[in-house]
């Protein structure tokens, strides 16, 4: 057993309101620079939709991730022979138009224009050329199903759905969508690391954060092709590739990453998980049907004495093990089995997990008689003449889950390599928790119904309350359990700290890091 620690994330999709605050927080801190204008290390997508960059999930186009071959797995679009023959022309690279041409507006024209007959306007200008441009695309152009025929209907995850199922998804009044916030998954088997000809990308030993060393990167851009989530980006100004760094300077000082800290819906959880690194190759080479279960099996129980002993033998600090025991990510992923990785079939073993959204699955629209209700309204109040009710209650236990307007198959394509039982198991648990809480707070459900629902999903009332607490009431320190970074130990391994006692500045070995090229 080779126990290592990984900072892992859980995004609770039922809580995401699609406000893009996370994206803005990240943009302001990290990618508000020349050459990085088009990058969104954190972005929020509407599903169904094609996302950013367009159709990133279609690996027939972008050739990202791993694929099985006879013996094990190989990179789909990179790897030694392919990288060598394509080193001066990488044929599967996304172009700027696949992302979008970054733009701003000439705001100064609004206040500096000479007096005239017309109001001055702020024209859009390209942040690459500085010339006036037509805005053709943005990082969330398909937000809230806008332009559905172009975006939602071209979602690669619709691939295995029957035409009837697809049509049902896009019927007026039945349309549903949810948000999918995405950052780098800090995978256990990262394709970007494997593809780098310069050896510039590495997975940090102490917490598993995947980073690109800007001094070693030579801009071959094999990682841009190899990452199936398209979460490495090429900076055209510095000539190097960049990606989400999970705000490691914040993590090291005990703060939550900016996207998580700023999250309005409080959908994000962060914590340490211990895993067995010996199993990475075997798990990544497993069959599509098994890859989710086997990834879950890799994650170890931080209370197991054997695991703790191996962890200590590997040099993990006691504080890290304690953080793993308190980790909200471990609870969601392992203890409660509520979260799933995004696109496990890419075989990178992503360590960012999603609690699948229940709401669009179970909500339905029914026709009701609103007349009595409308009479009670104040005469000056606006009365909508329609009689539709957006109904999130359910009379049957789990009937609506399998018979939902949002096909389970679609969710399964996203989160479990097409295995619908994985998704429905988790949705049933979410539903059982909801029924349990409804029985407590509203009390309009029969006790037997709730008991049956809990028993069906293997939850106890206590567990259901724990899930409810961490989902709805969790405080900041419950959502983010950040282990001490122990940088002092790392620094003391490299140099004698007495040499710089009394000096100012951060960083060791090299001078203080400089921004930019």
């Amino acid at each position, binding site marked *: 057993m080779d126990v290592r620690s990984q900072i892992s994330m859980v995004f609770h999709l039922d809580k995401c309101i699609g406000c893009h605050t996370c994206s803005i927080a990240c943009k302001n801190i990290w990618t508000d620079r020349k050459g990085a204008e088009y990058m969104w290390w954190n972005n929020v997508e509407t599903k169904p939709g094609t996302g950013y960059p367009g159709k990133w999930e279609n690996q027939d186009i972008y050739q990202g991730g791993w694929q099985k071959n006879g013996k094990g797995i190989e990179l789909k679009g990179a790897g030694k022979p392919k990288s060598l023959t394509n080193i001066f022309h990488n044929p599967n690279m996304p172009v700027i*138009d696949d992302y979008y041409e970054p733009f701003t507006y000439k705001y100064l024209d609004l206040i500096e224009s000479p007096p005239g007959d017309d109001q001055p306007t702020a024209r859009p200008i390209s942040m690459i050329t500085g010339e006036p441009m*037509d805005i*053709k695309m943005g990082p969330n152009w398909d937000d809230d199903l806008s332009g559905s025929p*172009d975006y939602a209907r071209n979602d690669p995850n619709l691939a295995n759905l029957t035409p009837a199922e697809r049509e049902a998804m896009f019927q007026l009044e039945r349309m549903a969508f949810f948000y999918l916030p995405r950052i780098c998954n800090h995978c256990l088997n990262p394709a970007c690391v494997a593809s780098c000809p310069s050896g510039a990308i590495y997975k940090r030993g102490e917490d598993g954060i995947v980073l690109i060393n800007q001094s070693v990167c030579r801009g071959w851009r094999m990682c841009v092709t190899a990452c199936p989530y398209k979460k490495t980006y090429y900076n055209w100004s510095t000539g190097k590739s960049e990606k989400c760094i999970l705000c490691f300077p914040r993590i090291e000082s005990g703060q939550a990453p900016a996207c998580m800290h700023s999250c309005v819906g409080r959908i994000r959880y962060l914590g340490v998980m211990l895993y067995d690194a010996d199993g990475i190759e075997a798990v990544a080479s497993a069959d599509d049907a098994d890859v989710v279960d086997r990834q879950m099996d890799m994650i170890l129980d931080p209370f197991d004495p054997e695991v703790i002993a191996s962890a200590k033998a590997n040099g993990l600090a006691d504080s890290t093990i304690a953080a793993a025991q308190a980790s909200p990510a471990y609870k969601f992923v392992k203890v409660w089995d509520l979260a799933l990785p995004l696109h496990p079939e890419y075989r990178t073993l992503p360590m960012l997990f999603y609690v699948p959204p229940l709401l669009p699955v179970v909500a339905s629209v029914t026709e009701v008689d609103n007349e009595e209700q409308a009479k009670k309204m104040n005469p000056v109040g606006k009365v909508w003449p329609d009689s539709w009710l957006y109904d999130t209650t359910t009379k049957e236990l789990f009937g609506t889950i399998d018979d939902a307007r949002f096909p389970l198959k679609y969710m399964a394509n996203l989160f479990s390599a097409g295995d619908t039982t994985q998704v429905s198991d988790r949705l049933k648990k979410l539903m059982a928790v909801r029924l349990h809480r409804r029985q407590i707070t509203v009390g309009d459900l029969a006790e037997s119904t709730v008991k049956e629902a809990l028993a069906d999903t293997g939850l106890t009332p206590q567990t259901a309350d724990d899930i409810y607490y961490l989902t709805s009431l969790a405080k900041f320190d419950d959502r983010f359990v950040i282990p001490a970074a122990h940088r002092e130990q790392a620094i003391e391994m490299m140099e004698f700290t007495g040499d710089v006692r009394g000096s100012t500045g951060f960083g060791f070995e090299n001078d203080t890091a400089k921004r930019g090229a």
Partner: protein
Amino acid sequence: MRLLSLSIGLVMLGLAAAPTRLTAQESSGEAIFQQKCSACHLTGSDRLVGPGLAGVTTRRDPAWLKRFIMQPDQVLASGDSIANALLLEYQVPMPNIGTTDAEAEALIAFLSGAEAAGESGAQQVAVAPATEEQIVLGQNLFQGTTRFSNNGPTCNSCHEVTNDAVIGGGILARELTTVFSRLGGPGVRAILGSPPFPVMQRAYQGTPLTDEEVVALVAFLERADAEQALHQPRDYGIKLFGAGVVGVLILLGLYSLLWRGRLRGSVNQAIYDRQISST
């Protein structure tokens, strides 16, 4: 970056300092003569490239002599009759090799001393006829297929010789096909032994040619001179350009075959094409 500029600075400092770092021994007239003049001149009356210098201090006005030693190009350009007559006779103009005032004085003192000593100056070395191996070696050295043992630069980076065996020499310095008949064996040998021309001096500073290499090169240049009429390197003219165009087309074809599955344009192109442009 700092290291690079420092090392460049050091090299430049070294170059600037080199000419001034003459020891007493080196600054003697004889040493200067050996270093700067002996490539073309003998102290006796025999002609080498330029005239033999026996009796030159009595033959010429001392002031003129000093000026000619220091700035022969300016004297020639001024239309000086003696200088022009010498050029007519010896064909090769004497190069300005940057002789300083003190060096010129030392040289004149040395030359009048040599006269007084009655030195014959017959320094001609009897040269055995070159072997075929030496000629081939000279050819290889000239075009750089064999390196000079002291790692000096190859001849054809600056010089050209009309010879079937040599492909495309440089055009930075004189064309050397007829150098043997122009300067004769001793002259070529002397120039190669200690180059009198400033650029060539600088190029071979610290990396002089060995005696065997000089003999081999002279042998090759003699052969090239003698057989120049028989050698006509082919001129491909427009065909060379045509072959280049065909080669490019073949490569482009190969690449488009090799990368036929590449991404073309944007995945959003159909959407962009439909959008209305404001311009």
